[in-house]
């Protein structure tokens, strides 16, 4: 009674912007441009959020710098009607799914109203307790399966998240019930100050899937084509009844953990520098340049459009009236309890 298996991996687009044509997903030029534009937009949003935080205009913020390919490449593989369960670093996922940017800023400024996904988008609020969103995705996929819907659930978490009991309980259940769910682990090499090798002695994180009876694959997380392709295949498999997949996006957190963190305390500048040439935008740009899809002027245009969109979002976020204190009671339960009703009068 023995079993043996190999850990799969995928990379398509290298640092020089060269794509392995045999593996390249079929993407029309317009889609490639859309990907690039989402990457620029997300990075623009991220930079703006960081400076808003510095200026005290929003609270603590977790930058996704360097993880754009992992987030956008994967999110693009889903339908709007699929169910997405992000962690707290997935602003590019929200943006890709069409979540209004001003609401993201509203959320990070400490206003729950920003976390109410617009109708038609089944995307959960930012989830702070690490790994706890994993069973939710599993439950949603159980529900979709039971209802006979074609919806797929998708869950994002980090390398740190793989250490949590909820990761284990969730993935194990997904395997047992062969559920339509895709697990996306953004292995950005760090969980605050704890490096990947101290998080788990497992050779790869993707191979953990085999403990649950389904496939795992490690993809170059800075290679948007690889991420997109692996996720699309996982989504197709899930939708077709083939069960879950664990995708490890091997990437890097270029920024501090959050604006409350100082990563120079625990990691070397050389390490950070060594990841710069692997930048996911850079290599997509080089690829597009070769294909004649990119030039300086296009870049300028994309940047300007992004800046305008982000500025609009900021203006909108900052023009909102503050939440009403009574809101904290309005949404605790469908109908306030007698005690809550009494407390509400305090305002």
């Amino acid at each position, binding site marked *: 009674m023995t079993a043996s298996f190999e850990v799969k991996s995928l990379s398509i687009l290298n640092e020089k912007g060269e794509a392995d044509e045999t593996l390249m997903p079929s993407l029309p030029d317009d889609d490639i441009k859309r990907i690039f534009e989402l990457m620029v937009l997300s990075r623009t949003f991220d930079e703006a959020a960081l400076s808003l935080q510095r200026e005290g205009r929003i609270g603590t913020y977790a930058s996704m710098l360097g993880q754009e390919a992992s987030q956008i490449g994967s999110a693009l593989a889903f339908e709007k009607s699929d169910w997405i369960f992000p962690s707290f670093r997935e602003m590019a996922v929200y943006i890709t799914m069409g979540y209004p940017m001003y609401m993201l800023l509203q959320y990070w400024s400490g206003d729950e109203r920003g976390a109410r996904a617009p109708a038609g988008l089944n995307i959960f609020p930012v989830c702070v307790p690490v790994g706890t969103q*994993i069973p939710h995705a599993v439950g949603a996929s*159980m529900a979709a399966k039971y*209802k006979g819907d074609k919806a797929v659930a998708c869950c994002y978490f980090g390398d740190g998240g793989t250490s949590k009991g909820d990761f284990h309980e969730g993935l194990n259940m997904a395997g047992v019930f062969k559920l339509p769910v895709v697990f996306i682990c953004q292995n950005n090499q760090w969980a605050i100050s704890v490096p990947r090798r101290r998080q788990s002695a497992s050779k790869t994180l993707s191979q953990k899937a085999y403990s649950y009876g389904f496939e795992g694959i490690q993809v170059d997380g800075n290679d948007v084509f690889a991420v997109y392709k692996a996720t699309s295949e996982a989504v197709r498999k899930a939708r077709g009844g083939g069960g879950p997949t664990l995708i490890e996006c091997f990437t890097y957190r270029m920024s501090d953990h959050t604006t409350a963190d100082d990563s120079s305390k625990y990691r070397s500048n050389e390490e950070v520098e060594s990841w710069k040439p692997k930048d996911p935008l850079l290599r997509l740009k080089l690829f597009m340049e070769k294909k004649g899809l990119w030039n300086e002027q296009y870049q300028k245009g994309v940047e300007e459009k992004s800046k305008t969109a982000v500025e609009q979002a900021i203006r909108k976020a900052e023009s909102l009236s503050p939440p009403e204190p009574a809101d904290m009671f309005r949404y605790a339960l469908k109908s306030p309890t007698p*005690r809550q009703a009494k407390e509400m009068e305090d305002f």
Partner: protein
Amino acid sequence: MANLNMVQAINSALREEMRRDGDVIVIGEDVGADGGVFRATEGLLHEFGAERVMDTPLAESGIAGAAVGMAAYGLKPVAEIQFMGFIYPAVDQIFSHAARIRSRSRGRFTCPLVIRTPYGAGIKAPELHSESTEAMFCHMQGIKVVVPSGPYNAKGLLISAIRDPDPVIFLESTRLYRSVKEEVPEGEYEIPLGQARIVREGTEVTLIAWGGMLRKAIEASEGFDAEVIDMMTLTPIDEEAIYRSVKKTGRVVIVHEAPKTCGFGAELSASIAEYAMLHLKSPIFRVTGYDTVMPLPKLEDYYVPSADRIRRAIEEAMKY
């Protein structure tokens, strides 16, 4: 009408609601072929199939977390945690998520979830089979805590809990499961959440109890002109019912099997001391499990409040 014990009444509530609403599904450990370790889900697998009566792997946090996802998606899961002593790994999912998703998403996602679990001493089982930590859950905002005291209200309360748009922790006293039979209507009926009931009227002292302690309170009340209140729902608290009684009697004895310190009795007592103090004639007494780790069966009977201990507290109150 049928003469049912509490297990049968709960089974009947589940069956009614599953028949009525295809979104109601049951998940947990051994809820399928085994019918639950107390047989509360017996026959459901046969009637509704494995897609609606799901045996899960042994993973309480996973069960609660998956139920949150199911509920947000639109189902009405009724999850069984095998004993209250095994709910602790699920506290994170209950507290951080089930209780908060409505608030976190400003009403976009909700959690119409019921978590049923046997609680309390009474079956002389090993450690963690006699837990009564309802107060922990009563402190959590965004959930409700319901504790039936017999077959009739178990059925009506469970139906209400399943229909409730918010998460409900539903605690079933193991000592009551098979020890009492009552007439239980066959169809569906609701007993509203958030309402206590007067079990016995009286004018000199108010006894407050719930679940497995109610019958002991009633027993102890014999010979006194005591009003006995069955909370049925712990949160939201039916404060009005309590104050009304206290205003009449001026004396209060609260009974629960959890340790005294920070038990739910503390909240009742504090609420009375805050909102009905001027009507009191005597100190408010609590007769509770002791402030120590629940012992194994050999000492269990010393630990759990006896009718005699309750009686002594009533007598004490009557001295004022």
